[in-house]
């Protein structure tokens, strides 16, 4: 029960911190923000990994492996496209042009 309260507190605190931080993000960064939080939500990869710390059937292993592949896809893809977009944000004229 105590653990449940702790988990609920972690959820509430993170939600509030997220709310405060995201409200500060200017609209011009909303697209990179979304692709980054998309990468962060791929933290579900942990769930897939944890499936391999216990005895499972082959079918469960395949489901878990598929989940890991999908989440890894989002981690790599999400962070790299975010960085790619952010590289393009310049305040001043780039010297080359």
């Amino acid at each position: 029960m105590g653990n449940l309260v702790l988990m609920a507190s972690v959820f509430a605190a993170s939600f509030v911190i997220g709310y405060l931080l995201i409200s500060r993000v200017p609209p011009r960064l909303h697209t990179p923000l979304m692709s980054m939080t998309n990468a962060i939500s791929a933290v579900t990869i942990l769930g897939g990994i944890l499936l391999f710390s216990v005895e499972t059937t082959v079918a469960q292993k395949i489901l878990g492996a598929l989940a890991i592949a999908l989440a890894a896809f989002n981690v790599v893809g999400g962070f790299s496209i975010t960085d790619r977009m952010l590289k393009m944000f310049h305040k001043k004229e780039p010297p080359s042009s």
Partner: protein
Amino acid sequence: MNIDLIIQPIYLISAILFILSLLWMGHPSTARRGVFAGIVAMLAAIGGTLFEPGMNYTWIAIPVVIGCVLGVPLAMVPLTAVPQRTALSHAFGGLAAGLVGASEYYLSQATAHHSLSGFEIGALVAEVILGFLTFTGSLMAAGKLMEWIPTRPITYKGQNAMNLSLLGVALLAGVLLVIFPTWWFLFPIIILLALAFGVLLIIPIGGADMPTVIALLNSYAGLSAVAMGFVLDNKLLIAAGALDGSSGLILSIIMCKAMNRSFTNVLFGAFGQVQASSGAVEQRTVKSATAEDAAQIMSAARSVVIIPGYGMAVAQAQHRVRELFDELGREGVDVKFAIHPVAGRMPGHMNVLLAEAEIPYDKLIEMEEINPDMPETDVALIIGANDVINPAARHDKSSPIFGMPIIDADKAKTVFVIKRSMNPGFAGIENELFYGDNTLMLFGDAKAMLTGIVQALKE
């Protein structure tokens, strides 16, 4: 030694870094540091988890490599395709959460000592419902964004009642499963209902509402990670999932506000079905102009405000816009961009496209800031935007977009509208701006028209 003494501190560091990554995302100058913090946080999360005893590393390494190899090319898509890529990632994220949930459930069925408590079953049901509905919902959204599926809202009688009862049945089945854990046959039914609900939820939503929907699906993906955390007793999953969940929620609220619409209206309103009263408007005539006329008027102007919309993205015209920006700048014209929060197909879409074309971000002005300047503006140039500049939103109570904040393009001394034809915009609403006394229509493809204007300016 208790392995938790290693794992939990690593998780704590990871959670702090995730929070810092969002903090740094708050400003363009620190945003890339934010991405770096996010990557380190994720590596720490994965690394810490690998300390769990009994890990089968081969089974983990192979899918990680496959995911990474496929993930890199899909991060290289053109920026006009970012909305559909994001929707596709949400689909993958939802599916991953759903699959882990299904696997966990059958694992608990197979091993007696691993049986789940009622609370854990409830969390598991929430995880698979959110995961699988995010999966099909996001696939539908991606399909609409790629125009593989008609982007117009598809409605039929009793649609909302059917969708809600479908979700109701899924939730009821979940409650029953908590009360009667031996009724294992309910589990696949819940999955099927969630998959169907995801599809039906997106069918009535039109392309113009995609910014809200993508943000909402982002939130669901995060919340399914939270539910997974409750099932697995993993506080890092809860923390990171909650950050994502609140982010998606805030973005969708911002999008709703920018359209002066409620959540329920976006999800169940089937925007665009309403036909505005167009009888009186049809008689009016529009004035059209050529690229040369536009070039002449703009080069004589002191200030030009460019208002981009989804049409600029479709025509991939952002680089031509950049040339126009350069050319007018050379002639001493002050050029700014007015960005409506819901212009495009995802939050911030226009900013990213213009950043790609290397337009300095301090030239991109938000709606509230630019509107007071519009009456002093010599020329407003509208490229592929429609509803976000429709003055009917200010005064016509019968218009479906009445009350939506708009960019006051009509207040500029001269208004140019680049548009393919006189067909009404996405929402099917007549736009009286096109008939204004100070409005000149530039009919044609946005890219070709802009090329023509730049050409004329150079001569």
